[in-house]
């Protein structure tokens, strides 16, 4: 079962606040498993936030971010009803995405 994702977006004054939860193990590669062998690195590398199809945030993150990351972004120039789409890409090439309408 793929780890789920959940996003929420709402207007705070004239700024849209977007909050996203991403289910991901975010393994650093430094941890050892119960068999004594290192657990391979596995982390989200790239996060993209789109507003009505236009990219507004494009970010790289690393294994320094902990398991099940939470991010929030503030975006100017958005309005209620706009569609926000958030996606990630990890170091194994897996992706996931979710969307939300700004409330």
């Amino acid at each position: 079962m793929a780890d789920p994702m959940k996003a929420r977006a709402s207007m705070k004054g004239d700024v849209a606040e977007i909050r996203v939860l991403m289910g991901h193990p975010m393994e650093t590669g430094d941890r050892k498993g119960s068999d004594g062998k290192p657990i391979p690195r596995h982390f989200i590398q790239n996060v993209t936030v789109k507003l009505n199809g236009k990219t507004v945030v494009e970010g790289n993150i690393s294994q320094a971010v902990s398991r099940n990351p939470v991010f929030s972004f503030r975006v100017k120039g958005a309005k209620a009803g706009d569609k926000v789409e958030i996606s990630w890409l990890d170091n194994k090439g897996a992706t996931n995405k979710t969307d939300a309408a700004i409330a």
Partner: protein
Amino acid sequence: MRALQRNALLTATALALVAAPALAQDEKKEIQKYQQMLTEGSPVELFELQGEALWNKPQGPKNASLQKCDLGQGPGVVKRAYATMPRYFADADRVMDLETRLVHCMMTLQGRTFDEITKRVFGNADRPSEMELIVFYVVGQSRGVKMAAPVSHPKEKESVGLGKKIFFYRAGAWDFSCASCHGEEGKRIRMQDLPILSDPSGARSYATWPAYRVSNSGLHTMQWRINDCYRQMRFPEPNFTSEATVALTHYMAVVAKGEPYDGPGTKR
């Protein structure tokens, strides 16, 4: 989140060093601030989604989902169900808490065995258990609902009475009871203030369990909470879904009556 946690801890330590006299108040405030931060970054909703998927997934010899499971509000009704549990179930002729009822549904609807279901009820950070995820889904559907475990059926009265007795019953290697830690004001374990669970003032605490614990990324159910309290008191390990654990939960639920449910909580 781990970085946040580290910062908050550093701040708390720094404050403790600088402001020794005004300590207690400042420390409390810092801990509250830290708990606020934890709640804001909590991943519990992700677990609720995973639990929902498991609830709907056909499993077991009968290849059935739990969608017809009756949690006391009618078959398949999950909304508000947790707030009125534990309760008496006529079809099983016993009082059941959420986990006990889920086991019952898995056995009757899915045709699974008790041993197979309860083989791994307490998971870990890398792999939460099926039970934990489903519990998180179900309790999340009672958010904001006032706790109202019923005490009308004779078996419910008996269960609450038994739970109260167990709460105050001292035994084990250290001669502890639940009330040793949760029976009077000002008790704590390390920096954790302990709620008085025999008094409505501790209701908020009951209403934030089951909970996600940040320090070990673990999902914890009420059965786990009781199990671990008994471990800390050096009692023998209680059986999963035993009458004693259900009765104790029932007693705490009844004390917490009227408190809006605010879980699954996030603990440090």
